[in-house]
């Protein structure tokens, strides 16, 4: 059983990293701070599967909710608008 590093409600920051190759974290959200909404499950790491490897150990996947105004400078909609992005644990850092 994979231990989960985060729980719903935890504040997290997306790593501001730009590794080459197949990654599943959109550029636009790197460096942004959001809140774990729920745990989506534990999945073989797609960033490894892409190269024909087994993707093990599997990694926890979180649904992380961000305020649109946190993600986009000059977001035009209401302050309550959000975007939920599915992010693997190794892309997240704790944020207090």
């Amino acid at each position, binding site marked *: 059983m994979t231990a989960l590093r985060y729980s719903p409600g935890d504040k997290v920051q997306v790593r501001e990293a730009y590794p080459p190759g197949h990654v599943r974290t*959109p550029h*636009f959200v790197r460096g942004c701070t959001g809140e774990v909404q729920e745990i*989506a499950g534990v999945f073989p790491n797609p960033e490894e599967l892409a190269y024909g490897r087994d993707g093990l150990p599997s990694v926890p*996947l979180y649904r992380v909710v961000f305020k649109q105004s946190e993600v986009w400078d000059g977001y035009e909609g*209401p302050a309550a*608008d959000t975007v*939920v992005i599915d992010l*693997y644990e190794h892309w997240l850092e704790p944020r207090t």
Partner: protein
Amino acid sequence: MSHDHTHDHTDYQPDIEDFPFTDRMVMTQAIAELIVEKGICTADELRQQIELMDSKEPALGARLVAKTWVDPEFKSRVLEDCAKAAAEIGIDIGDIPIKAIENTEDVHNVVVCTLCSCYPRMLIGLPPDWYKSRAYRSRAVKEPRKVLEEFGTHIPDNVEVRVHDSTADLRYLVLPARPDGTADWDERKLAQLITRDSMVGVTPAKSPDDT
């Protein structure tokens, strides 16, 4: 490079005869041939998978959503575990998890895959071309209200627009809200109000006046 493998490329019958192959089509064909040649699956298994995919259509998702409108306990089960709930009504959604998200008075949900074109195919079939376009994939996440307006959908400012980016292992199905004026409608009739686009979240379900 020598062309020393033995199979014959000359009997290939293209799917589309009226246009020259694009590079992408050549690449797709080459991958399909390699998959078969390496014995990963047979040509017939490939064909069956395409046939299965083509048999999926929005009517499946509509049937599921209509039942959530008349059966609150079923809706809870759909929100909890979509695959299991779909199986109750004879729909097999396969191995890729689909998460249902519910539109409410306070939240309007819309789905995009910014990295590629992930889509709940097993419940609503193949995605429309616009869903795969770079324009939709980049704009739906950045200016969702503007994109929704272009679909004819106005979301009032007191309703949160929540964009779901299916970047990973989940696919998303929006449960549109049940329209007013349908209190005495049965599931079959309700299902006619539930369109593909409403399950992606770019429109609400049709109103009874539209049918």
